[in-house]
């Protein structure tokens, strides 16, 4: 009987099986990686803004405190975005005619609000509250990174639920003295674990219920 297949068919057969397996695993790997990639989470991606606002300049350069613009960060779930007025308190004096600030001036003049692009965008079913985090000694930088080094603002964290849980499971690893909360340059000490324990006492942080669903979802 004539051979139905060529000699190399065996090699091909094995190759297809091996290859198929590898391709499948590869595909899984790609999906897995893509889901965690910065592309996907828009991490470290600085979206275009109506005004090229530089935290670096305002915070590091001019030493303006976070709360000067984000007024409600200690009072409310929402940190607050500065109304145009706030910008103009200074910019009616400095950079009066700067073309980059035209949108700001227009905004005030025509009462048209500025439309910034969100950098940190949590899903709508997540109820994050800035005030409580600040109050318990979680620094701005813990989530927002060194904004004082950002010419344009970008996301420094993936904002995955797992990432939230990391901190909610062991807050002691992320707590800092209350007076350091707004210090972007604060570096956690070597013995953060021990320090964290004492800070837990001081800041009245309760582990109980930190990982309850209803803590963030309603």
């Amino acid at each position, binding site marked *: *009987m004539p051979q*139905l297949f*060529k000699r*190399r*068919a*065996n090699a091909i*057969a094995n190759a297809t*099986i091996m290859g198929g397996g590898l391709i499948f695993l590869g595909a899984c790997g790609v999906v897995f990686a893509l889901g965690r990639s910065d592309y996907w989470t828009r991490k470290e991606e600085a979206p275009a803004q109506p005004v090229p606002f530089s935290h670096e300049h305002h915070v590091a350069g001019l030493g303006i405190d976070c709360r000067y613009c984000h007024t409600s960060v200690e009072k409310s779930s929402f940190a607050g975005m500065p109304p145009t007025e706030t910008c103009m308190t200074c910019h009616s004096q400095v950079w009066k005619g700067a073309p980059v600030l035209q949108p700001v001036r227009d905004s005030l003049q025509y009462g048209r609000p500025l439309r910034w692009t969100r950098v940190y965008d949590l899903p709508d079913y997540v109820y994050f509250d800035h005030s409580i985090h600040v109050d318990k000694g979680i620094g701005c930088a813990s989530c927002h990174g060194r904004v004082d080094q950002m010419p344009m603002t970008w996301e420094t964290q993936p904002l995955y639920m797992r990432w939230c849980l990391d901190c909610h499971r062991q807050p002691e690893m992320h707590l800092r003295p209350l007076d350091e909360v707004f210090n972007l340059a604060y570096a956690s000490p070597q013995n953060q674990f021990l320090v964290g324990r004492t800070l837990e006492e001081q800041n009245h942080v309760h582990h109980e219920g930190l*990982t309850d669903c209803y803590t963030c979802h309603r």
Partner: protein
Amino acid sequence: MKPDLYGFMAEFEQPEELLNAARAAHEAGYRKMDAYSPFPVEGAAEAIGFERTRVPLVVLIGGITGAGVAYGMQYYSAVWDYPLNIGGRPLHSWPSFIPITFELTVLFAAVAAVFGMLLMNGLPKPYHPVFNAPAFKLASQTRFFLCLQATDPQFGERTKYFLAGLNPIAVHEVES
């Protein structure tokens, strides 16, 4: 004797003849041989000196792995990774973990059985010298074949006559 010879192949009508032939060949000192039949012939494997298969061992390993993986996964996720109070039940609700453990045990064992078998049989092997033998397509239908391979030290021109002596229907040369 041609160099590119895989072996000589005797073709038989009945499985009993195949068995006898195989036994004879084995007594004659042939080792590198194989028997081919359209359905499993009792004792054929033993006749050509193939005593025991390791398939059961593979299956056992597969089963144990499955059980381990299943229970481990459940214990880790429910007790360790994200402990949740589900209707006041304990975190380690072992009775609820049994069904999945069982299922995965069976699954892993079964997969091990099939792929173990194929692997040890060296399948898939779409090309094989024996297919060169004329009339070998009957091996999957009605006929029985005994093939003595050229790699056997005893192999030689006489092997052909030896096979012919086992009164087969025919003896074929199988070139590799």
